[in-house]
């Protein structure tokens, strides 16, 4: 590296750190952007539930259903219909059963009738969410280290990129289409700089989130190895409450839930998210209501709670929320910004667009690597390394979305009673991805792009159509009962199908292009520019 100036050194660093980790970062960005809509994707992957509509009487009806379904349970947890999922989700624990987040038994109820709805075995949006930071099929800790190192390199790439392309601040809004390598450069710069606050924030906060797992030594020494104590102090989590002694329990009717919910709704603008009933049907019953979403990033997860006596319906206590200290506040702001648990639909869409721009930025950087070396390859003949990068570019940039589309298709096509159904949805994802890799290796570069983008457009566009033909479909549900959660997903699928189709259009042969526009010496994905 001797003899290189500061900017050349940064350029070298940016090129090679970007190339080596680009494919992984692209996958992390794509699955991360989709994870902002994790709940919506999970709901979309349960088509039997699409007709559910939230109803004002949902809390009382859900409690009635629970009384019929699990009268002897030690605890009911009822998550009410909300803007991201119009069904009621219930979970209950038998007497003496350990209460954990995913334990006990669960069911999904219709938001209006509170009757149980059919569920198909599917990991839903959770698979994409886990893939975002734990990949798949490897030890969790190892995968998090890999993603953490990639995140670190992303931060390096952002900073070295700003130094390398320092002209981005002079030609801020510049995009020169149909100019080959220059156009790709402009796309890469524009995508980077337009969403720079987002890129920096999401990378930095992602690193911060992984930091506690990757480098726990500071926390371990301060808390004497009791990491749980650290997290409960940060998150103000209460340990799972121990079941009350069974001594003086006598049967008693549960108070009506409706008035309690209305009382809470008067206080909380976002309404009630969750109802937890302990010892239902006894004189010791309590009803805890939890507020939906919190109003500030500073107090992540510290949404309001109200506790009522289950028999009399009297308000027991509403503990005042303590202000978080400065360190917690900073940690909370960054982790909530990354996880977006609090956000309304508009912010969720803004962040999703930011994630898509980030994916496109990484992708354009990798295409740029190929395009830049194209004249040299033309002169010197093909080169195994160059060909490898070309193939991997197609297989990741177009192949990963195809794999995700295959995952969605498997969700619709696999029979509901099938054994290991959820696993086969994931297998479909990886089989499709491998097929894309093989296809990209054996087809000429330009044809591979065209065919994969065309396949992607078809796969995405046909999904809503398939639902429509199979009866109902979310679009119909949206029009007839105003339930837009699943329909939003269908519109997004159609939008991305249109984007891929546009990609195919830009890849058409140069002659066809010359007929429509002034001929341009295009040099993009081997002769094409955006």
């Amino acid at each position, binding site marked *: 590296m001797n003899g290189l100036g500061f900017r050349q050194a940064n350029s070298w660093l940016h090129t090679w750190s970007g190339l080596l980790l680009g494919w992984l970062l692209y996958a992390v960005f794509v699955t991360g952007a989709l994870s902002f809509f994790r709940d919506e994707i999970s709901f979309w992957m349960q088509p039997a539930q699409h007709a559910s509509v939230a109803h004002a009487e949902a809390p009382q009806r859900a409690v009635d259903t629970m009384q019929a379904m699990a009268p002897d349970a030690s605890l009911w947890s009822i998550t009410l219909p909300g803007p991201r999922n119009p069904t009621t989700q219930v979970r209950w624990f038998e007497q003496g059963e350990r209460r954990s987040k995913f334990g006990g038994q669960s069911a999904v109820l219709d938001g209006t009738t509170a009757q149980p709805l059919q569920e198909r075995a599917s990991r839903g949006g959770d698979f994409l969410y886990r893939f975002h930071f734990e990949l798949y099929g490897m030890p969790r800790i190892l995968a998090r280290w890999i993603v953490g190192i990639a995140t670190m390199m992303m931060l390096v790439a952002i900073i070295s990129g700003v130094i390398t392309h320092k002209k981005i601040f002079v030609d*801020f*809004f510049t*995009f020169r289409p149909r100019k080959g390598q220059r156009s790709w450069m402009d796309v890469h710069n524009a995508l980077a700089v*337009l969403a720079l606050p987002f890129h920096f924030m999401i990378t930095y906060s992602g690193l911060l989130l992984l930091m506690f797992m990757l480098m726990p030594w500071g926390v371990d020494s301060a808390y004497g190895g009791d990491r749980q104590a650290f997290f409960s102090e940060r998150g103000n989590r209460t340990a799972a409450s121990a079941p009350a002694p069974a001594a003086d329990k006598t049967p008693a009717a549960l108070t009506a839930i409706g008035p309690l919910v209305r009382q809470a709704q008067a206080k909380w603008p976002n309404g009630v998210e969750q109802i937890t009933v302990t010892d239902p049907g006894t004189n010791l019953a309590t009803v805890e209501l939890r507020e939906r979403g919190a*109003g500030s990033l500073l107090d992540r997860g510290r949404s309001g709670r109200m506790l009522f006596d289950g028999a009399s319906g009297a308000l027991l206590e509403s503990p005042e929320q303590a202000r978080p200290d400065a360190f917690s506040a900073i940690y909370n*702001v960054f982790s909530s910004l990354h996880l977006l648990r609090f956000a309304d639909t508009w*912010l969720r869409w803004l962040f999703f*667009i930011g994630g898509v*721009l980030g994916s496109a930025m990484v992708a354009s950087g990798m295409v740029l690597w190929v395009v830049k070396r194209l004249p040299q390859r033309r002169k010197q003949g093909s080169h195994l390394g160059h060909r490898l990068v070309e193939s991997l570019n197609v297989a990741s940039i177009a192949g990963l979305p195809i794999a995700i589309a295959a995952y969605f298709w498997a969700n619709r096509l696999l029979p509901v009673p099938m054994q290991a159904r959820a696993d086969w949805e994931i297998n479909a994802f990886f089989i499709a991805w491998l097929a894309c890799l093989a296809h990209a290796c054996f087809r000429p570069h330009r044809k591979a792009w065209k065919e994969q983008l065309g396949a992607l457009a078809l796969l995405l566009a046909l999904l809503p159509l398939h639902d429509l033909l199979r009866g109902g479909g979310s679009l119909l549900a949206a029009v007839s009962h105003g339930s837009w959660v699943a329909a939003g997903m269908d519109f997004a699928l159609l939008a991305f199908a249109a984007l891929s189709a546009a990609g195919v259009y830009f890849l058409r042969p140069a002659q066809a292009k010359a007929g429509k526009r002034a001929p341009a010496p295009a040099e993009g994905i081997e002769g094409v520019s955006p």
Partner: protein
Amino acid sequence: MNWTSLALAFCGLTLLALGMARHHEQVFGDRPALVRPAVLAVFGWLLLIVSTLPPIARHGTSIGLAVWAGELTLAALAVLLLHTYAPRFVPPLLAAAALSVPAWLLIAGWSR
């Protein structure tokens, strides 16, 4: 959705762009600038700062700033695409966006 903040960010970024020689030429060709670039830049930055206020008023400082950063990105995308593909429409859309802010405030009210 904060229309006022989006429109203000769009106006601010457009003024900033018009203060740059390359983008001024895209829109106005070789006609001389009516306003000095430095003045455009000052007003552009001022509008960007003002555009943070509606989301902060609506969502609080922490979430508001996150919303604002996202809206800034959207506005910047619009400015870029306009300058590339339809530079003729920059002045009329700038005027329309600027006028839409008081109109929106009158209709929706500042109350929320």
